[in-house]
């Protein structure tokens, strides 16, 4: 209620400012000298006085002058300040010239507010639409990779349509299921960036921001600090990605056509060994379970089998199934946009189409997007609307299962020979009728198609109430249906057929609807000549509904007829989630001589996800920016200097339904006409409050040599407190999870952006942009009730690496078993929870390392630092770019490495006939000298080594497969040539650009297999545990852009 009163009082103060009417009235309009667009908010001062005014939404102003006044001063962000003599005129129309090189000093912040960069007391970084298109990526997140400091973007792998994930300034939530990813806002309206993973086997579903066509994007601002996000409320607690789409400009109709084709190939495929064939313990067996622990191929050129009493001989050879089973991916993108308009109305329309094929067979993803944006103004009213229809989807392959089945697949069998002529499955034994699901058969026959139809639209209006006050209203909708169909065709019903499923069809219907309403009162007024005052008050409502219905029909009566009517057993499930938020906010900016800026914001939210007593929460922010280079005389080379300081709080509510304690009916019911119920695992919390994040930030902007070199640095520290955690509890409590406010997590870091133009001549220009990020994350405390909050773990055959939050450790800590270390008497680990990697190994009496089954921190999945260096060179009509990505000091658990140790596929296991003395100490402190054999079975020394070193020791210690996933990537390198109109005289073409880009052309990494960036599900917080991921790719893109 206090907020309402405050709003009212402040408004009254504004009203009290009476217009001082006297003498002569001067009116006029201010426009842009280049485009002719009218300019809103231009400040007009009567020279030598404190009197003045600002232009309204249509660029009109009215001002009173006295006879003795001589001139008016027009000043506007990004434009040259203009002095115009009055000369007794009563109408003075002015056009302002854009200040080249400073125009980029306007930046879009919350609610599409354009603000001067210099006025910001917090850090914010933007990316131009051209840079997004130039990346050659057809997904927004992939295009943003490396372009913004403080932001970590990971690609899931090379799958067509596979989701990516984005984290800003680290992880702020202790809840394993919390979304740590930022809010996405398109043209002022939040949109969904959810990743809804497939039911059953993981398939790398798209993150929904992938629906946005990068070609439509004019600019992206990344709000990474709390004050910037305070205006969006709880949903932007992890930051916000503000996307502004292209709009038409007054003038001739412009047409742009762009086309690109790309090819993708797997990167960093490990070296597979072709020495040992299938079998176990050096026994060659092409019909058994073990794919490559058998005898040598060279010793087994043939294999003899008795079939129907007849001895038959089969030739044996090695197949590199990992290579052969995958193909080249490709992409074809086409888009056309048409834009234009008059002074009072502009439009932009676009149609685009993207078709993609992944490197795993039968993986496709396509997107078609149609967009219409329009703006019109008449008198005091401005109305804009935009509508974006998207259809996207494809066939998703179960890549984890694909990679897993490849691990099981005999190296003596050709996996690409996946079926018999009659369509039956072909297994990995000699006759092909045995077990062992063929991954290529699986990928080709088990289909999972998603079909997303999405509409994102908004209407925004603004009405000038006075020349300094406007009312704005914006309503937006983001609604989509995601229709997914999985078909496992089941057996053909033929003899000698390997059957793993009797067939099923599953239909998933996901309907999501987000509504946003935002009303605000915006003002812009100079209090005195020196003191500017602007801001807004508003109300914001968010309403979301997500409905899912899932039906599954099991067991086909008629083989291969996938239909519910043909299923023996039908299961149906449904879910509904609703969430509502109401917010009121105030945003006030005061500046002194455009040099010192003070920004205050306050917001109160009411959420539906907490109890009535706890649902309301207020959070403020204050930030200060001082452009000290305008206050103090600086040497010539020092162009600009600014310091900024901010403090902010952000609140965050719970997920829906965390307060309910329920019963549920498990899926097998009804049975025999009875429906069973069981108590749900969630224990209702007694008192759940909103979370709170407190952030402090200090930043410096420097520009030297007329902007040839600039440096933007932020230092921040944020503490998230009263975190809402789903605490897993002992099953013995009768429950499995309890939500509680507990714990604190801290992120602190440095972000540095350096821009430079080392060379600038008439023909040649070289720009470098470099983004450096270093974030340190520490879990300060968790609830007393548990020792650790388990984010999750991953079943990896014999072991189970885990991510869990423990005070004093990083969010990214990977916990697991290890080889025990040797400590001389009197010494002990400084932190018993952390493995000291550089300590010598403890060797057992048997000569092998001792496995320590106590879980310890064996790695950290949050990078020590990241750096991106982007270069662009323009030489006459040529443009070149090269972008390097450095991600350093990051560890991840590599399940594929462990799998290889289990199955002996890679050259790492070629030491299987070697003797070795493990370096380390016995428990009594003597150095180990015992020689042991690494193979399986009885070794040359007569000792029985059982399943051998790799299976018995190496893979059991999670430490061994926790690898350094640091990398340096040549993220992209490209060249283009632009033909301009002068060359093509007579043609109705303004320009043509042809370009070639290569992505991931080079990769340096200690990571042993495929892409160190890869993960399985974009929606997951388990960033340190890499399941058998979709292999990453390098791509070559050719693109063509034609402007008419």
């Amino acid at each position, binding site marked *: 209620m206090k907020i309402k009163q405050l709003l009212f009082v402040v408004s009254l103060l504004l009203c009290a400012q009476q217009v001082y009417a006297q003498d002569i009235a001067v009116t006029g309009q201010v426009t842009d000298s280049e485009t002719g667009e009218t300019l809103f908010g231009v400040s007009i001062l009567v020279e030598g006085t404190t009197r003045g005014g600002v232009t309204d939404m249509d660029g009109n102003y009215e001002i009173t002058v006295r006879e003795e006044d001589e001139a008016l001063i027009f000043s506007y962000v990004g434009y040259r300040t203009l002095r115009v003599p009055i000369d007794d005129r009563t109408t003075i129309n002015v056009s302002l010239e854009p200040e080249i090189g400073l125009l980029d000093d306007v930046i879009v912040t919350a609610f599409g507010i354009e603000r001067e960069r210099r006025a910001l007391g917090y850090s914010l970084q933007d990316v131009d639409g051209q840079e997004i298109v130039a990346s050659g990526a057809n997904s927004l997140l992939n295009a943003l990779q490396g372009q913004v400091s403080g932001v970590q973007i990971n690609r899931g792998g090379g799958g067509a349509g596979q989701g990516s994930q984005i984290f800003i300034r680290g992880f702020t939530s202790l809840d394993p299921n919390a979304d740590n990813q930022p809010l996405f806002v398109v043209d002022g309206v939040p949109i969904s960036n959810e990743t809804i993973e497939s039911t059953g086997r993981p398939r790398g579903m798209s993150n929904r921001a992938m629906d946005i066509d990068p070609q439509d994007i004019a600019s992206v601002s990344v709000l990474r600090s709390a004050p910037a996000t305070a205006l969006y409320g709880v949903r932007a607690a992890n930051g916000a990605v503000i996307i502004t789409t292209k709009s038409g400009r007054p003038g001739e109709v412009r047409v742009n056509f762009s086309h690109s084709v790309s090819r993708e190939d797997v990167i960093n495929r490990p070296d597979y060994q072709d020495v040992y064939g299938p079998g176990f313990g050096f026994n060659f067996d092409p019909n058994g379970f073990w794919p490559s622990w058998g005898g040598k191929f060279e010793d087994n050129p043939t294999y003899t089998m008795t079939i129907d009493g007849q001895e038959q001989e089969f030739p044996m050879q090695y197949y590199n199934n990992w290579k052969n089973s995958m193909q080249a991916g490709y992409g074809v993108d086409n888009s056309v946009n048409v834009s234009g308009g008059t002074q009072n109305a502009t439009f932009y329309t676009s149609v685009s189409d993207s078709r993609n094929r992944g490197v795993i067979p039968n993986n496709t993803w396509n997107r078609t997007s149609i967009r219409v944006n329009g703006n019109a103004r008449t008198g005091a009213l401005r109305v804009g609307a935009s509508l974006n229809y998207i259809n996207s989807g494809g066939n998703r392959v179960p890549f984890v299962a694909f990679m897993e089945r490849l691990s099981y697949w005999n190296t003596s069998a050709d996996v690409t020979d996946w079926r018999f002529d009659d369509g039956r499955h072909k297994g990995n034994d000699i006759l092909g009728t045995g077990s062992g699901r063929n991954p290529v058969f699986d990928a080709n026959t088990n289909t999972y198609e998603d079909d997303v139809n999405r509409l994102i639209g908004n209407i925004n209006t603004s009405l000038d*109430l006075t020349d300094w006050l406007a009312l704005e209203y914006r309503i937006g909708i983001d609604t989509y249906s995601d229709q997914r169909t999985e078909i496992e065709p089941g057996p053909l019903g033929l003899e000698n057929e390997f059957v793993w499923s009797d067939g099923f069809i599953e239909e998933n219907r996901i309907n999501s609807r987000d509504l946003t309403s935002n009303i605000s009162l915006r003002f812009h007024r100079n209090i005195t000549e020196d003191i500017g005052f602007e801001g807004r008050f508003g109300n914001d409502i968010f309403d979301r509904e997500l409905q899912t219905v899932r039906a599954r029909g099991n067991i086909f009566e008629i083989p291969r007829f996938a239909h519910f009517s043909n299923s023996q*057993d039908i299961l149906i499930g449904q879910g509904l989630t609703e969430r509502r938020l109401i917010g009121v906010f105030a945003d006030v900016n005061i500046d002194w001589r455009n040099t010192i800026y003070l920004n205050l914001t306050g917001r109160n939210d009411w959420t539906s996800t907490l109890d009535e007593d706890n649902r309301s929460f207020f959070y403020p922010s204050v930030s200060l920016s001082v452009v000290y280079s305008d206050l103090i005389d600086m040497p010539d080379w020092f162009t600009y200097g600014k310091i900024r300081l901010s403090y902010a709080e952000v609140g965050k509510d719970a997920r829906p339904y965390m307060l309910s304690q329920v*019963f549920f009916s498990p899926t097998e019911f009804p049975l025999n006409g009875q429906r069973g119920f069981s108590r749900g695992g969630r224990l209702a919390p007694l008192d759940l409050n909103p979370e709170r994040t407190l952030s402090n930030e200090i930043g410096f902007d420097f520009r030297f040599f007329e902007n040839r070199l600039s440096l933007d640095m932020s230092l921040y520290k944020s503490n998230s407190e009263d975190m809402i955690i789903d605490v*897993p509890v002992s099953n013995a409590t009768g429950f499995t999870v309890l939500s509680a406010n507990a714990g604190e997590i801290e992120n602190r870091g440095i972000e540095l952006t350096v821009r430079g133009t080392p060379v600038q001549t008439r023909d040649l220009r070289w720009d470098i942009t470099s983004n450096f990020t270093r974030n340190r994350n520490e879990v300060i405390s968790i609830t007393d009730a548990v020792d650790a909050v388990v984010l999750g773990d991953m079943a990896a055959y014999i072991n189970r690496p885990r991510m869990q939050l423990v005070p004093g450790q990083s969010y990214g800590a990977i916990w697991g078993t290890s080889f025990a270390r040797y400590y001389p008497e009197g010494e002990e680990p400084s932190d018993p929870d952390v493995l000291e990697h550089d300590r010598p190994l403890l060797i057992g009496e048997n000569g092998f390392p001792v496995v320590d089954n106590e879980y310890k921190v064996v790695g950290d999945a949050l990078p020590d630092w990241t750096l991106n260096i982007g270069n662009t060179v323009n030489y006459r009509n040529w443009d070149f770019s090269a972008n390097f990505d450095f991600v350093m000091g990051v560890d991840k658990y590599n399940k594929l490495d462990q799998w290889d140790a289990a199955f002996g596929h890679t050259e790492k296991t070629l030491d299987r006939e070697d003797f070795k003395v493990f370096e380390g100490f016995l428990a009594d402190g003597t150095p180990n000298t015992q020689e042991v054999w690494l193979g399986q079975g009885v070794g040359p020394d007569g000792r029985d080594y*059982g399943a051998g070193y790799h299976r018995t020791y190496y893979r059991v210690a999670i430490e061994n497969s926790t690898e350094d996933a640091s990398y340096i990537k040549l993220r992209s390198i490209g060249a283009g040539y632009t033909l301009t109109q002068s060359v093509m005289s007579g043609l109705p073409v303004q320009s043509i650009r042809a370009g070639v880009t290569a992505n991931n052309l080079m990769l340096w990494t200690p990571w042993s297999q495929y892409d160190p960036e890869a993960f399985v599900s974009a929606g997951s917080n388990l960033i340190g545990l890499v399941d058998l991921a979709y292999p990453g790719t390098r791509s070559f893109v050719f693109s063509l852009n034609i402007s008419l």
Partner: protein
Amino acid sequence: MKFTMKYSLVLVMMSFVVFSCDDYLDINENPNFPTDAPIEGLMTRTTLESARNTSRTAGTVSYFTQHFASPNEATSTDTHQPVSYGGTWASLYSVLSDLAEMDLKADDLDAPYYGGVAKILTAYNLGLLTSMFGDAPYSEALFAQTLNPPYDSSEDIYEVMLDMLDMGIQDLEQPSSAVVPAADDYIFNGDRASWIRTAYALKARYLNHYSKLGSYDPDAVLDAVDDAFENSNQDFQMNFFEGEGTGAENPWYRLAVNNAGLLLGGWLSEQFVDHLNGNIYGIVDPRIEFITEPVSIEADPRFGEYVGTPNGAGRGADPEQDVRAVLAVGSWYANEPTDPLQMATYAEMKFIEAEAALAAGQPGRAETAYEDGIRAHMEKLGVDPADIDDYWANPDVSTNIDLDKIMKEKYVAMFLIPEAWNDARRYDYAYEEFTIPANHNPDLGGQHIRLVRYPDSERQRNAAQIPDRGASDQLLGRIFWDAP
């Protein structure tokens, strides 16, 4: 101008006032689930889950008793590795929680017949829990009294189990109940007499577990046996349902079907097969053909023989099908999806009686019970009466009845009943030719596993309470009655 100003302020406030109606935000009741459940629904769930818990535990401990063996070499359960059986642990506690809810609800509704079943099934699931894991939380468990429930000793848990059985019998003997179980009781369809007999059967089973202790009271065991099942038709078992692949069907049937579909599992140990096929005792047990199938590949020199798989060794060069003995589709234990799953049987009672009578110095009673046990199990499986008589006619079977003979015969009758592991431990794995699996976990120093370790979930969430059971990663720790 001022007027417009005011007007717009009113607008802003109105939108706030309109939408801040509490109703608008009161949508946090989870629409997907009920907040309470009918007592019948709890009965349905707990009877079904008790049967499933039986197969969950048996699916693990049958490797320790060497009824089962892994088709693959050196797999973890088969070689007594410290595996985390977190799923079984969670399932046991889930059904214990539902039973506790049902018991409370029965009190509220004045429905002692539900309360009685709840108590008997609580005793049964606690028995499965403690015999597999040893000490476990109970006295401060199931209702979130604390988030770190302390562990009760297995001895104390046995006290609870025996109390529960007595109280369950009392409840079921009440003259009336406001609500009466019927079709919602998947096990006995609401038949109280069956439940009471089951309570006595479980009591006999649990009291007999004290056999290695000084406190063993064979007379008390015999008393309980007297009130337990009178024939195999009264067995504590549950019929499953149609619905392939949904979890509704008999889990052993599903295991056999999966194995036939080459998702390998349910392979019989060489120990068990040799126990039956005459390799160990020189007598072919007629039950073998009701349990498994012989080698069916004619070209194989072992054609027609029953060939088991040695524990820990895997199937060697043999194919996945048609050679090694497996739990076969169509065998007595995996015939139909709707087959019953046995939890406690009349045959078991007879062997318990034989053992207790022997201890109580009543060899005559022991002998009769021993014969009844063999015959009851064979008849249940459908063995031809002539074959039963032939088997009994063999003096190696029917004379000199001692504990070894009783345990030898009980070993067959307890196939797929997790109680078999309790027998094996009480008997110290002293079956003929019973050996340590190949590739055995070296940490056990050649000793058989005595308990499984506490699951990872418990290590993560309740670490401080977990009892210390020594260097073998808990596997050599013992339940209280398993005296060395």
